[in-house]
Each structure stands twice: as structure tokens, then as C-alpha cells.
């Protein structure tokens, strides 16, 4: 089964509202990453958070990591139509792994 699983699978909100997506994983990790994929495009890296960090910000994005619950959340504040995309979390499947395993993503739709 997947290392990272996003929740919800789909989210539809009004422009200006905040969007929260969650990611749960199974094993100990040294980092967790969030990526965005616009329709028909490649993935774009958003934020990397390490296991010794609890929160990280980048512009309107806020990522939290709770290693005790093996979960992470991505918050997008004041959403815009351009934020419409799929959002993926990715983690190494175990510490020392030389690859990332991606979840199936959350499809976010921002309605004008």
C-alpha cells in the first residue's frame, strides 16, 4: 500500500477561502515533501519539511509535520483560482531510502 496517502481526494472551495490537505504515512522518515501539479503539466516542488521541523511557511503555504501521528498538512490561505491543481505529498519509504513515494494526490478546485 502507499506510503503517503492524501485526504481528501478532492476538495472544492470558493476563492478567498483557506484549503487544508492532509497526508498520512506509515514509516519513520527524514523528510516529507509537497508538490503541485497543474493539469497537463509536470510536478512542481512546494515545500520540504524535515523530521526535526514542526512547521514551515512559504508565502501563502503552511506545512505542518507531526511525526508522532505520522501525518502532515498543507494549508493554502486566501486561495486563488490559480491554485486549482492536484497536490501530492511524497516521502522516502524508509529512512535512508534513495527514492520518494508519492501519494495519489488531492484534487483542489478553487471556484471564482
Amino acid at each position, binding site marked *: 500500500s502507499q506510503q503517503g496517502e492524501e485526504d481528501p481526494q478532492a476538495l472544492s472551495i470558493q476563492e478567498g477561502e483557506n484549503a487544508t490537505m492532509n497526508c498520512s504515512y506509515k514509516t519513520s522518515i*527524514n*523528510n516529507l*515533501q509537497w*508538490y503541485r*501539479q497543474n493539469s*497537463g*503539466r*509536470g*510536478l*512542481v*516542488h512546494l515545500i*520540504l519539511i524535515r523530521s526535526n521541523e514542526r512547521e514551515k511557511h512559504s508565502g501563502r503555504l503552511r506545512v505542518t509535520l507531526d511525526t508522532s501521528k505520522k501525518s502532515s498538512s498543507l494549508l493554502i490561505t486566501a486561495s486563488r483560482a490559480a491554485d486549482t491543481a*492536484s497536490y*501530492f505529498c*511524497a516521502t*522516502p519509504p524508509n529512512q535512508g*531510502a*534513495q*527514492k*520518494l*513515494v*508519492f501519494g*495519489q*494526490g488531492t484534487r483542489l478546485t478553487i471556484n471564482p
Partner: protein
Amino acid sequence: DTAVSQTPKYLVTQMGNDKSIKCEQNLGHDTMYWYKQDSKKFLKIMFSYNNKELIINETVPNRFSPKSPDKAHLNLHINSLELGDSAVYFCASSTLPAETQYFGPGTRLLVL
């Protein structure tokens, strides 16, 4: 300048044909990857090279053969194409395995 580029962008071909996809990165990264994304957006790693050396070879049919002529290039050759090979193939690169990855725009392969 494009960081990670792939050619071709679209590939439509008949079952049984052989085709290649090329990838180049100008980021100076040591690690490159091939991913396959299916129609449900599930992104799965296929291969990874570090400094031209194969380090990840997931359970992929041996009809798929990667080649890294140098650190900046990673090509994917597919023999005897099958209907199930239809997907989007992404190339990516990173400084180190399992760190921040930079993705190409994808190659949309359709096997008829």
C-alpha cells in the same frame, strides 16, 4: 531556460513498436529519475540514476531500458510497446536521492 526538458511531448504509436524518450537537465544535479503516471494520477518511480549509475530499478518489465550517457541526460527506451504502457512519463532530477525533485513537463504516450 528550461531546467528539465523531455522530448517528445506527445507520442502516439502502434502496439509492438519500439520508442525512445529523451530527458536532459541543466541544473547540475547528480540524480535523475523516470516516473510513470497512470490515468488515475498515481505516480510511480521506475528508475533512478546517480552519477550515471543505476541505483533504483523498480519492478518494471525488461522491455523498458534506461540509459544515462552522462549526468545531464537520462533516456528511456521501450521495446514492443503494449496498450498498458499508455501513460504520462516524467523525468526528474535532484541533487541527492530523495531530496527536492525537479520534474520535466512529461511525455504523453498513447499506444494504439
